[in-house]
């Protein structure tokens, strides 16, 4: 069932989004008039085949890519109307990322990776440091705070990445295949941890995934097909 009408309480709102990519002499349309919304505190699992536009959708929501047409409104801010710098600042204050390849900064320690966003924003203070310490403790890596990423296992790196995505208290978490590089057991643990922390923080999360396990932590499940979102209820 295509998702069309947005409730008045929508935290994330996509209005008639069009996104095309240039490919050679021609172009490829990923979205044409896509609309959707996410309520505050919701966790959405986003499925779709490779190349269906999952990452593009995440990039549009993060303000990394602007749409060619339409509006991307997050908590009342229209990212499509903002310039690149404004989108960047909005992103670092309001959005947390979790990537499939962890993407920790190799030249920063685990603790420094956690504090990166607040420091980039010039808002590092005792409270943020305390939050970072607590989050590291919560993901079981308090003892590895001073370790550089190349000294951590894949699971440990992803736990650091999860904590790092939350430390600046973002309202929206975007996770792109967060368990794609983990073994089954570690992936399950990781998903549970992610869901627990996001729920407790009251944040909203969109998880792009191929893993059916993610549906277990989601309020709703979206499936992207030919640039259209089809929705079903989650398994929570």
């Amino acid at each position: 069932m295509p998702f069309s009408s947005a409730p008045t309480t929508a935290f994330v709102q996509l209005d008639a989004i069009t996104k095309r990519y240039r490919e050679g002499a021609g172009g490829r349309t990923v979205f044409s008039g896509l609309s959707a919304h996410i309520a505050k505190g919701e966790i959405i699992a986003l499925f779709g085949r490779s190349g269906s536009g999952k990452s593009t959708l995440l990039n549009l929501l993060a303000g990394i890519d602007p749409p060619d047409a339409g509006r991307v409104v997050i908590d009342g801010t229209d990212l499509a109307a903002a310039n690149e710098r404004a989108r960047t600042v909005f992103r670092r204050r309001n959005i947390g990322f979790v990537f499939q390849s962890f993407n920790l900064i190799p030249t920063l320690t685990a603790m420094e990776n956690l504090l990166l966003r607040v420091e980039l924003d010039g808002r590092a203070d005792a409270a943020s440091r305390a939050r970072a310490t607590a989050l590291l403790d919560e993901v079981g890596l308090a003892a590895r705070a001073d370790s550089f990423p190349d000294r951590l296992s894949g699971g440990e790196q992803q736990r650091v990445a999860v904590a790092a995505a939350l430390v600046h208290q973002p309202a929206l978490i975007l996770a792109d295949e967060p368990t794609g590089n983990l073994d089954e057991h570690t992936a399950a643990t990781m998903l549970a941890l992610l869901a627990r922390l996001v729920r407790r923080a009251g944040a909203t999360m969109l998880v792009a995934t191929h893993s059916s396990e993610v549906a277990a932590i989601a309020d709703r499940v979206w499936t992207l097909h030919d640039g259209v979102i089809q929705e079903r209820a989650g398994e929570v």
Partner: protein
Amino acid sequence: MIWRASWRHHARSPWLLALAVIGVAVGVAMVAGIDLANSAARRAFADAIATVTGTATHQVLPGPNGINDADYARLRTSLPQGVQAAPVIEAEVMVADHPGRVLRLLGVDPFAEGAFRSGLLPIGGSDRSDFSLPRFLTEPGAVVLAQYTATELGLTPGSTFLVRVGGRRVALKLLSTFQPAAGFNARALRGLALTDISTAQEILGRVGALDRIDLLVPAGSEAALAVLLRPADSELQPSGARAQAIQNLTAAFHTNLSALSLIAVVVAMFLIYNTATFSVVSRRDLIGRLRAAGATRAAIAGVVLGEAALLGLVASLIGIGAGIALAHGLIGGMTRTIGELYATVPDAGIVIEPLALFCDLLVGVLATVVAAAVPAWEATTVPPRVALGRSHSESAFRARLPWLALCGVVLMAAAGAVMLTSVRSVAVGFAGLGGLIAGYALVVPIGVVAGMWLLRPIARALFGPIGAMGVRSVVSALSRTGVAVAALSIAAAASLGIGVMVASFRATVDEWLTQTLVADLYVTAPRPIAAKASPQALSPTLVTRLLATPGVAAAVPKRDVKVRSSWGEVSLSAFDHDDRAMGRFRVTSFVGSASAAAAWQGYVAGNGVLITEPLAWRQHLHAGQTLRLRTAQGEHDFPITGVVVDYANDQGQVFISGALYRQWWRDTAVTSLSLTATPDVGRVELERRLRAQAGGDDVVFTASRDLLDTSLAVFDRTFAITDVARILAGVVAFIGVLSALMALSLERTREIGVLRAHGCTPGQVVALVLTQCGATGLIAGLLSLPLGLAMAQVLAAVINRRSFGWTFPLALPPGLLAQAVGLAVIAALLAGVYPAWRMARTSPAAVLRDE
């Protein structure tokens, strides 16, 4: 197939190849440029000497009192069968209306010339219709010039022009011009003025005197000739000895220039190492797959080395082209410097010597292949199918750091030991210096780790996480940045080392000149540029008039001559001064328990001579020994009472009291006068009175201040070429840092993309890269200080000592230290501008799409 895969890889980042090519090309250009200019100057000397020597096999050279027509007549009449002789007068004269233009006046006897310079002169069978032998022999001041020399001076046959000779102006008349005969180097004839020997004697005011007698001696007749020699202070020597003496004179100068040019090559080698390392590291995946497909280790190493050789070849060819252009730019300054320091260099033209250029090409290619050897070896260690991450290869590199540092320390110790094994060889000195630099380069990476560890909290405190990341990223890519830092450190150290050495030397020379130039005025005959080549005497009547001028409080007449010694010609200066002048000599070595004052007093009293440090060094002489000189009364052993500091002549000099000189050489001529004004008259008024006394005599009055300034200007011009070397080494180092940063920017695309995704603004990316560059430059600059100071010490105490025999204390101008650090920081920051701009444009969307 492997080559094709490799080529496609390089085609993706052509700028990296381009930077490496430029770096090597600059290094080779420096070597080829200095090489060509050096050989041009050498060839100019040799051609000029060959031109005026002609086919002579031997020369009879005079003592200070010269040889004369009577000596020649006596020799000629008693010559053994088959021996031919021709008298020669040769001197430099200045063209009055063309300041700085020198003519070499060659006076010959047309009737004796035939076999000697038959192709040179339009004499003796010449078919030139406008040349008149009778007029050549009889017309006062008649000279013959090469056509283009006449054109340059604006002269046509029949026109007259003035030249300055030993304090006089003499009119010369251009009799005719000639085109150089086949087999003569046209450049060598530039500035040559041919005249009859009696005309030359009149022009030079030396009627009856000869400079030498050229001989054509069949093998085996030398011994018979030696017994015929009169007077006793004249000497028979092979004609090639003169050319050899000139070449020896400038050998150290050329060696030092060549060594200097190698600095740029050494720095360029780091650049190649970096490029080759990057090409290996970034292809570990590809290499692993090729190995899995059956490529042998040797094949992989062959590709890496082959690429390096190809790159070295292309870069060296470009460098040689640039070197030829550089040589044209350098030759003017170089010949002027050689002229000021040693002897006038005739017009020196750059000649392309295929063999020399091939050697330069070989230097470039070999340096490139050697620099790529380690990366090639690393490439063979990649196991099949295993693609290791950068962190693993960096970890492996870091694990090797202590060993590298240990090797570096051992190499530096070995370099020191090598320098001690031979206390005189300049080549061994440079080899030691090379070892020192190479050893230090191996220690640099561990120095980078330590430096960045210290710098990180400071950078964090100053610039937040961006600062910390910038500093840390230098260490996390140490295999890349370590080499860039080493290259930059060496360039900055070379700049500092040469700078400290030159500044210390200059300060010492300045102090020495200030102490030496105690008189108010110096009076000399006008001198050609190469004053040391042919000191000319003042006329005796002029000296008498000047010394009698009211207002002269003190006068020190000085006689400069070249005398024969057991090893060849040596400069000798005879002074008539008293104990008050002792301050101008700093005696550094004297006999046994005697004192500097005793050495001085022994010299003043005529008990012996003082010699300068370069002479003591070159001839292994020391106080207490004797020095055998050929005097007007035959050979005599003079006791050496002491060794004195002197920076006027790197070939060394003998100081002798005027009385002792006159006693042995019976020569009362005066070359220069140092005059001090009475307090009531002062220098300006004394100079006015002296000029009035000089009347029509053409003499030069120089105030001590002007002499000091002129001497320091010569010093500065001498070392000007070191600035070129420093700049080019800096350029290569700059390219090295740029290359390393560009390679890093390619590798860090994902990291930067993620940072941008996390909310890092383009400005923050720029700040990150520039912090990395600033930290790189700062550490490189700081690490350059110990090496730079060590290089200065080696250059001063080893290279300079061995090349020229001078000693001087090192001074440490703080400005130079700050300059070295500043240079490294600015070079690194400038090198970071483009990579920073490039990284700031990294699209996070593109990076995330690759997830």
